[in-house]
């Protein structure tokens, strides 16, 4: 259970804040590390899904802020369906394939898209862009 702002915790937050100030002030290395992380280039989304073998399915479930399976494989002409089972809204957007779902939430929690051309298409949630997936389309 994480509860950031209970009364006793409030003091801890303040102490933590002071510690962070000190760290930043004296730790050149810490500073350099965080700035480097901030500079992560935008090309990153390809990395995560590619690490897992693609699963042959046309159904993707969104659960616990993840696309499952994150990497799928379908034949050209297949219609892929995404279903959001989280309470939070999610979406499916891609800069590599012209698809942008509506907000998936409540009764409108599914999105379909037909992949015509072979290739590998990466996508993410437009609201929580750290959520990544990919669709490998074979001939």
């Amino acid at each position: 259970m994480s509860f950031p702002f209970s009364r006793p915790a409030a003091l801890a937050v303040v102490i933590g804040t002071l510690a962070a100030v000190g760290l930043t002030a004296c730790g050149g290395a810490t500073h350099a590390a965080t700035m480097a992380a901030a500079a992560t280039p935008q090309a990153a989304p390809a990395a995560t899904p590619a690490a897992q073998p693609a699963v042959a399915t046309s159904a993707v479930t969104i659960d616990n802020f993840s696309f499952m399976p994150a990497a799928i494989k379908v034949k050209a002409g297949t219609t892929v369906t995404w279903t959001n089972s989280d309470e939070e809204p999610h979406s499916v957007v891609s800069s590599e394939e012209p698809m942008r779902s509506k907000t998936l939430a409540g009764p409108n929690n599914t999105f379909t898209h037909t992949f015509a051309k072979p290739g590998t298409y990466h996508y993410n949630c437009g609201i929580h862009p750290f959520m990544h997936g990919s669709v490998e389309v074979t001939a």
Partner: protein
Amino acid sequence: MNSANPDDAFKHELSRRRFLRHAAWAGAAVAVTVSGGVVTSNVLHHGSSTPNAEDFSFVQISDSHIGFTGAANPDVTKTFQSAIDLVNALPARPDFVVHTGDLTHFSTNEQFDQVKQMLSTLRTGQVLVLPGEHDSTDDTGEKYRQFFGAGTQGDGWFSFDHRGAHFVALVNTINLQKLGHLGPEQLAWLEGDLKRVKSETPLVVFSHIPLFAMYPDWGWGTDDATTALGYMPRFGSVTVLNGHVHQLMKKVEGNITFHTAAPTAYPLPHGGDGPAPKPVVVPAAQLHQALGIRQAHLLPGRHGLAITDQELPS
């Protein structure tokens, strides 16, 4: 200090001195106090003065998520109203109120309209707004800008001068691929905007997503922030105020002080605490402690903003 062990007193003094030395290195000492749920951090700087700046205050509110219906806050309208009431009850009327995004949860016209009407009841000189990613859930911010885009540029960014200080509102919530993103057009605009501002002018920057790498695995950072911050080292005082993470955090990097804001809707976990940044459900009677408003005072002769975070009343 009431300490039974003299060693403790010595350690305390040592750590205090060390802190002050490091704080001097950073450019500003910070005193943080907690009193009745109010967290205050005062900048205790005795360095170069800002002769043109006047004493005034403004208010930041953030992350209202109108339209959210989950267990973490069954009535986000009520808590947003409570935040507005708290601002309206402040002894000193703020010069302006800025909402740093996630006005709505689903970016519908009805939600934008409701937020706009509620914001219009604020007792202040002007209401300023910037978008969060929840304000463009199914478009690239077009609906948001129909309601709040007047007088802004690009995706909704803007800047202004106010009583000796310069303010910039950035939009880093459009076309996201992992982290927050400013984009080359906005960066070029920012570089040109700051060129005409004198280095001794206090600079205050608003964004929704943090401009520092708070927890990149959850998208809590901005991929091209280093370019934006690279325009700012010459300024004596830079304060960046953001929302998005639904919790208070302060970070100092060189001449820049970052403050993340409390939400008016619901808390999120600390970065990496659990599998995802899901809304945190707390006992109903304690929810108000996780929500709040922020006052910022700019004082003449001081080198930065004095920030006061205040939780919502029960």
